[in-house]
C-alpha cells in the first residue's frame, strides 16, 4: 500500500511543471485579451493616452490634470469652476484679465463705455479656430441664446444690466428687444438699463463669450459636448476630449495673439478628484502641477518641492435662517455663536493649510478698492473670541425667546471634506463653550442648496465664489431680492446700500457703500466667517508662467512656458 516516496515526489514535480506551463499559458491569454480589448476600445473612438511625462521639452508641451470632466462647455449654460478653467484656455471674449488681473483687450481691440452705451470694436484678425472671422453677430447670438427662456441658462442673470435682458429672459419681451446690436461685422453696441461701473469686468466673464450661430445650429443641440462640437476663439483649441479621461489642447493658429502663446500643446492627461492619486502622479512626473492637502505638506517639504499658494477667491461662512419662527432670527443668539468661536483656530489648527485665511468679512482680501485693496481701505470689524461674553449673549437670547434650554439647532452642511471637518468642529465648539446641542445635517451639494432654498435649516455652512472682479459680486448676496440669499435676510438699509453700489458710477461712493454693507453684516451677525479658501500647490520647476487666480480660469496655462533644466534656478 505504501507508495515509494520517489513516485509521490515525482508526481508533485510533474504537477508543478504542468502548472508552470499553465501559468505561462494564462499570462499569454491575459496579454492577448488585453491587447484585443485595447484594440476594440480603440475602435470605439477613445484615443490612446499619451504616456508622456509632465514636461515634454521636445514637443514643447506639458501634462496637467483636471478635478472632474468639464460638465458644460457650452458657455451659455456653463456654471462651474472646472468648465470655466477649460473655457478660459480655449475661448476668449471681448475683454480678458491680464497677468496682473487687470482688464485688458481681448477680441475687442478698443472699447468705450459711456453712460448707458457701451461700444466694442473687434479686431480685424479675430478668428475662429476654423479660420472664419469672429463678428459682432456672434456675440449678439450668444448673448440672446443665453437669455432665451427655452435654454434655461442659470447664468442669464449676468446679462440683466443690459436693456430689456431681464424681461426677455422671463419671456415678457422678445429676444430681439435686448439691447445688443451689431452695427457692422466688427462693431458691437450694447445698451444698458442704467450706467454701471463694472460692465467691463462683466464682459470678461465666460457667459459673454461669442458663439458662431451657423456652427451652433450645425451641432444639433450638442454644442460643447465633444471636442469637435465647439468652435474656439481662444489661444488653444481642443483636439481631443475623451470624457472622464483626457483632453488635449493644441495651440490655436488663428488666435490673434498666437505669437505670445509659448506652449504648443497642453495635455490634460488625468481627470480625477482623488488627491492621493494626483499626488502619486506628480511624484511619478506625470503632471506638471499638483494641489496639496495639509497632510501632504510634510512629504512635499521632504521631497524639496517648490511650493506656492494662492487664494481661489471663495469665502465660506455659516449663514443663518432668518425666516420667521426660527431661533436663528434672534440677534443675541447669533452674537453668542459668533463670540463663542475662534476663526483663527479653525484655519490654523484644523484646516492648517497655508493660503487659507480666517474670513473676517464677506469681502475677501484680494478685492480692489479705490486705490489699495478694499480691505486695506475699509478694514473689517474685528470680532474676538470671548466665551464669557458669548454666554452672556446666550442668556439674553434665552430670556428674549422665553426658553430655559435651547432645543437642538440644525447645522446644514454638504459632504465635501472641508465641510465635514468644519461642521464637526463647530458642533464640538458650541457644545463645549455654550452647551448647545448642534445636530449636523449632511447633504450632498445639490440637496444642501435645495434645503437652503426651502428654508429647512437653522445654520448652514455655505460659501460664495466671485463672478467678476468687483466687490458687488459679494455685496448683493444678502440683498432681500437676491435669490441666493437663501436665509431670507431682509434689511432695508443694506438693500439701499446695495442699490447705491449698483447704480453709482463714482468708485469712492460705491466703496463707501460696500464699507457700510460690511458693517451692517457684522452688526446684524448675518454670517459667521469661516475661511477664505486658499490652495497650496507644487509646480514642476521647468514650467514657468502658470497663473492661478480667483476670477476666470482658476489655473491658467495659456501664458506658461518651459525653461530647460539647465537654466532653471
Amino acid at each position, binding site marked *: 500500500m505504501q507508495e515509494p516516496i520517489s513516485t509521490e515526489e515525482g508526481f508533485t514535480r510533474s*504537477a508543478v511543471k504542468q*502548472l508552470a506551463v499553465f501559468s505561462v499559458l494564462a499570462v499569454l491569454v491575459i496579454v492577448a485579451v488585453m491587447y484585443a480589448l485595447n484594440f476594440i476600445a480603440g475602435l470605439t473612438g477613445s484615443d490612446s493616452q499619451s504616456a508622456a511625462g509632465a514636461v515634454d521639452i521636445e514637443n514643447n508641451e506639458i501634462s496637467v490634470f483636471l478635478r472632474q470632466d468639464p460638465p458644460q462647455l457650452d458657455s451659455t449654460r456653463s456654471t462651474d469652476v472646472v468648465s470655466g478653467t477649460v473655457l478660459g484656455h480655449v475661448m476668449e471674449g471681448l475683454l480678458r484679465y491680464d497677468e496682473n488681473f487687470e482688464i485688458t483687450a481681448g477680441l475687442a481691440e478698443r472699447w468705450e463705455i459711456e453712460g448707458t452705451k457701451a461700444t466694442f470694436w473687434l479686431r480685424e484678425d479675430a478668428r475662429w479656430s476654423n479660420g472664419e472671422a469672429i463678428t459682432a453677430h456672434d456675440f449678439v447670438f450668444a448673448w440672446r441664446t443665453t437669455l432665451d427662456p427655452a435654454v434655461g441658462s442659470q447664468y442669464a442673470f449676468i446679462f440683466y444690466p443690459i436693456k430689456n435682458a431681464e424681461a426677455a429672459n422671463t419671456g415678457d419681451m422678445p429676444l430681439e428687444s435686448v439691447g445688443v446690436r451689431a452695427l457692422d461685422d466688427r462693431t458691437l453696441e450694447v445698451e444698458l438699463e442704467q450706467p454701471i461701473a463694472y460692465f467691463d469686468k462683466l464682459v470678461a466673464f465666460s457667459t459673454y463669450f461669442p458663439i458662431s450661430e451657423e456652427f451652433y445650429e450645425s451641432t444639433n443641440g450638442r454644442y460643447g*459636448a465633444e471636442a469637435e462640437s465647439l468652435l474656439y476663439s481662444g489661444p488653444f483649441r481642443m483636439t481631443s476630449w475623451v470624457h472622464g479621461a483626457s483632453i488635449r489642447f493644441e495651440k490655436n493658429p488663428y488666435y490673434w495673439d498666437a505669437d505670445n502663446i509659448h506652449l504648443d500643446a497642453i495635455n490634460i492627461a488625468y481627470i480625477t478628484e482623488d488627491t492621493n*492619486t494626483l499626488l*502619486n502622479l506628480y511624484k511619478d512626473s*506625470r503632471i506638471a502641477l499638483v494641489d496639496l492637502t495639509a497632510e501632504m505638506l510634510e512629504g512635499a517639504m521632504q521631497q524639496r518641492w517648490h511650493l506656492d499658494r494662492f487664494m481661489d477667491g471663495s469665502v465660506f461662512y455659516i449663514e443663518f435662517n432668518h425666516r420667521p419662527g426660527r431661533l436663528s432670527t434672534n440677534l443675541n443668539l447669533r452674537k453668542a455663536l459668533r463670540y463663542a468661536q475662534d476663526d483663527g483656530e479653525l484655519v490654523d489648527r484644523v484646516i492648517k493649510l497655508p493660503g487659507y485665511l480666517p474670513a473676517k468679512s464677506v469681502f475677501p482680501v484680494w478685492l480692489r478698492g479705490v486705490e489699495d485693496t478694499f480691505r486695506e481701505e475699509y478694514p473689517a470689524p474685528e470680532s474676538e473670541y470671548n466665551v464669557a461674553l458669548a454666554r452672556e449673549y446666550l442668556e439674553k437670547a434665552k430670556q428674549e425667546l422665553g426658553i430655559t434650554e435651547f432645543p437642538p439647532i440644525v447645522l446644514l452642511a454638504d459632504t465635501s471634506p472641508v465641510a465635514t471637518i468644519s461642521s464637526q468642529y463647530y458642533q464640538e465648539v458650541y457644545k463645549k463653550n455654550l452647551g448647545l446641542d448642534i445636530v449636523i445635517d449632511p447633504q450632498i451639494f*445639490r440637496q444642501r442648496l435645495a434645503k437652503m432654498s426651502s428654508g429647512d435649516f437653522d445654520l448652514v455652512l455655505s460659501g460664495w465664489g466671485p463672478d467678476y472682479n468687483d466687490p458687488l459680486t459679494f455685496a448683493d448676496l444678502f440683498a432681500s431680492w437676491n435669490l441666493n440669499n437663501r436665509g431670507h435676510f431682509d434689511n432695508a438699509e443694506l438693500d439701499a446700500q446695495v442699490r447705491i453700489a449698483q447704480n453709482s458710477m463714482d468708485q469712492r461712493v460705491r466703496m463707501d457703500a460696500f464699507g457700510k454693507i460690511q458693517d451692517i453684516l457684522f452688526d446684524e451677525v448675518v454670517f459667521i466667517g469661516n475661511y477664505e479658501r486658499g490652495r497650496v500647490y507644487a509646480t514642476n520647476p521647468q514650467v514657468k508662467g502658470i497663473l492661478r487666480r480667483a476670477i476666470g480660469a482658476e489655473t491658467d496655462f495659456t501664458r506658461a512656458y518651459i525653461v530647460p533644466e539647465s537654466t532653471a534656478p
Partner: protein
Amino acid sequence: MWQYTLKRLLQGVITVWFIATATFLAMHSVPGDPISGERAATEAIRANLAARYGLDKPLGEQYVIYIGNFLKGDFGISFTQQNRQVNDIIREHFPVSATLGILAVLFAALGGVLWGALTAIYRNRLPDTIIMFLVILGISVPSFVFAALGQLALVNINNFFGVSILPVAGWGTVSHMIVPALVLGMGTMAYLTRLMRSSMLEIIHSDYVRTAKAKGLPAERIFLKHQLRNAILPVVTVLGPAIAAITTGGFVVELVFAIPGLGRYFVQAVQQLDYTVIMGTTVFYGSFLVFMVILVDLLYGWIDPRVRVQ
C-alpha cells in the same frame, strides 16, 4: 430547447421592466431637486428646465414617457452635462468598465485555479502556507485599501528604478490595465483559490485518482485530465456571480486609478443628483446582468441537459 430559451428571455424582459420601474419609483421619491444649481434660478428659468426634462408632468405620464423612451433605447439627457445623452455616456464609459471587469475575472479565474492547485499539491508545506496567508489577506482587506496601497507601491517602484515601469493611474494603453484589474480581481481570486484548493484536495483523495495511479497512468495525464479538470468544475459554477460582483464593484478601482468607467460616472451622478444618468445607468447595468445570467444559464443548459428539464 427553443421553448426553454424563449421562456427565459421572456422572464428576463419582465425582470428588466421590474428593474426599470423600481428605479423610476426610487428616483422620484428622492427628496431634493435635480434642477437646483449653485446660482439660484428664477421661477421662470426653473419652469423652463423642468419642462425640458418633463418634470412638470404628472408622475403617471412621466412614467409612461419614461418606459416608452426606454423601449426606444433612449435614456434622455444628463442633468449636469446638459448637452450629453445618457446613451452617449453609457456607450463611452461602459466598454471601459467591461474591459476592466473581463480582465479582473480572467485574473481571478486563472490565478485562482493556479494558486489553488499549487496549494493543494504542496498542502501544509511552505508554498501552501505562504499562499494561504496571501489568500487570507485578499479576503479580509477592503478593496479601497488595496487600491490605495497598490498605487503607492507603484509610485515607489517607479521612483526606485527611475523609469516608469507601470503607469500610476489613468487609462488608454495596455499597461494602464494591469494593476487596476489585479486589484479588482484580488478578492475573487482569493475566494476562488480557497474553493479550488478544497476541491482539489477532495479529488486527490478520490478513488478514481488512486485507481489511475495504480493503473500506472503517466503523472501528467492524471494531474491534467483527472485532477485539474474535475476540480475546476465548482470554480466554473461560481464564475457567474463573480462576474456580476466584479462588474458593479469596479467603482473603487475606477475612482482610485482615475479610470473613466461607468461605475465612477454612476457615483458622480449620485453625488450630483443627476436623475437621468442614475436611472439610465442602473437600468442598463440591471438589464446587462439579467441577460448575462440568462446567457450563462443557457450555456449550462447546452452543456448539461439536466438543467433544461428542471
